């Protein structure tokens, strides 16, 4: 079976599993909403202040909820030892990681597609003219987040206290991504919105570096 087809089949399995119960999506969505609402108590949410602090707030909410959402990626395969079945399947290890990565990306983008407009409404930040450009930044930022996150959830799944360990491993690694994503979003929230080329390039670079590393190291991540 070629890698692309294997990834497709595994991705379909991940999506089917999640959409049967939708528990991961619902919990993540509610959690990020709580973070976003709670930030209104951390500063005075006037429209001007919200434009300044909003990008950081949004991305910290996405990072935190992402790092929690990614936890079950591999650990839920351990409950019934289904991870062994996946390992025995005649597919390249990267196909397993890639399918999980794409599924996580899809879930995170769904959350963002709901939360970003909601953020715009409750913090009085108009997103009308920047939807397309914001989508590019969200996509590139989320891709980096789930790439590192999926790889690390394969690591933390074998450790004790894994729910706590994943954010501890993931968040420091994502510091450059946070800086780039916040700066790019900040440029979009300005009075004359621009898609900052430097930061978009940086985000794409981050994605490429981490995707390549995950691809090269996926054999080690998937081994028994």
């Amino acid at each position: 079976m070629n890698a692309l087809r294997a990834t497709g089949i595994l991705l379909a399995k991940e999506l089917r599993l999640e959409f049967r119960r939708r528990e991961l999506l619902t919990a993540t969505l509610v959690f990020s909403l709580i973070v976003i609402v709670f930030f209104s108590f951390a500063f005075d949410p006037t429209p001007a202040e919200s434009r300044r602090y909003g990008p950081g707030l949004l991305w910290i909410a996405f990072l935190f909820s992402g790092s929690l959402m990614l936890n079950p990626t591999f650990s839920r395969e351990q409950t019934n030892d289904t991870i062994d079945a996946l390992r025995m399947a005649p597919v390249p290890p990267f196909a397993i990681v890639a399918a999980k990565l794409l599924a996580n990306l899809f879930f995170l983008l769904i959350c963002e597609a709901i939360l970003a407009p909601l953020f715009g409404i409750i913090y009085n930040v108009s997103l009308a003219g920047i939807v397309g450009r914001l989508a590019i930044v969200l996509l590139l930022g989320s891709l980096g987040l789930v790439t590192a996150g999926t790889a690390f959830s394969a690591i933390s799944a074998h450790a004790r206290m894994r729910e706590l360990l994943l954010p501890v491993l993931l968040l420091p690694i994502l510091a450059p991504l946070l800086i780039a994503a916040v700066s790019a979003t900040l440029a979009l929230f300005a009075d004359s919105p621009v898609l900052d080329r430097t930061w978009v390039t940086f985000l794409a670079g981050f994605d490429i570096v981490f995707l390549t590393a995950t691809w090269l190291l996926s054999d080690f991540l998937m081994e028994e």
Partner: protein
Amino acid sequence: MKARIPITLLIALLVCFAGYAGLFIAPTEAKQGDVQRIFYFHVASWVAMFTAFSITVVANIGWLATRKPRWDWLAVASAEAGVVCCTIGLTTGPFWAKPIWGIWWTWDPRLTTTFLLWLLYISYLLLRGLVDDPSRRATLSAVFGVFAYLDVPLVYVSNRLWRGQHPQPVYFGGEGSGADPTMTKVLLIAMSAIFCVMILALLDRYRLEELRFAADELRVEIESRASDAGALPVETATGEGVR
């Protein structure tokens, strides 16, 4: 390991001499005064830290490529030695910064990068402590180590780009005061002193890991013999029975 005690004493002597040289032999810096003397040990700790962390990533790759346990011992030994050096650098820095810059800390790219580097290797050591199976611990931590190493230049570049757009509260100045030849000599002495301390700590830690590995193997063997004889499980150091 017979030479261990004399070598340790020799390094202790070197550290004392470096301290003396930094405090009394090196001339007083014209603008900063005596505070600048901390610089000898501050810079020296960075050199040792970079060496240690470079050894860690080489050892990580070494383990992934060869699966020889000694690469893993080297990885943990160098990561711990590197974290100690990083901590020395991060604590001596603010003592210099407060009188010179007027603040303990600033989010300058170099400082931020170092802080994150420290956090990354603390997470690395934390991960090692939370995985029980030795071979799996070595593999998973090696993968994380490679990711962490790749991240460092990205952290630096992002901070550089980000802070570059804003005026800095303070700026690095006067550090390149290597014009005085005595200062350069003192710096080299301090560097070799801290470097030797780092290597000594690294080798001791490596030896400890080696002994642990040997002890574990013996314990497994005792256990297998005991179970052959139908005896009770042997108690480990943590009080858990070994299977």
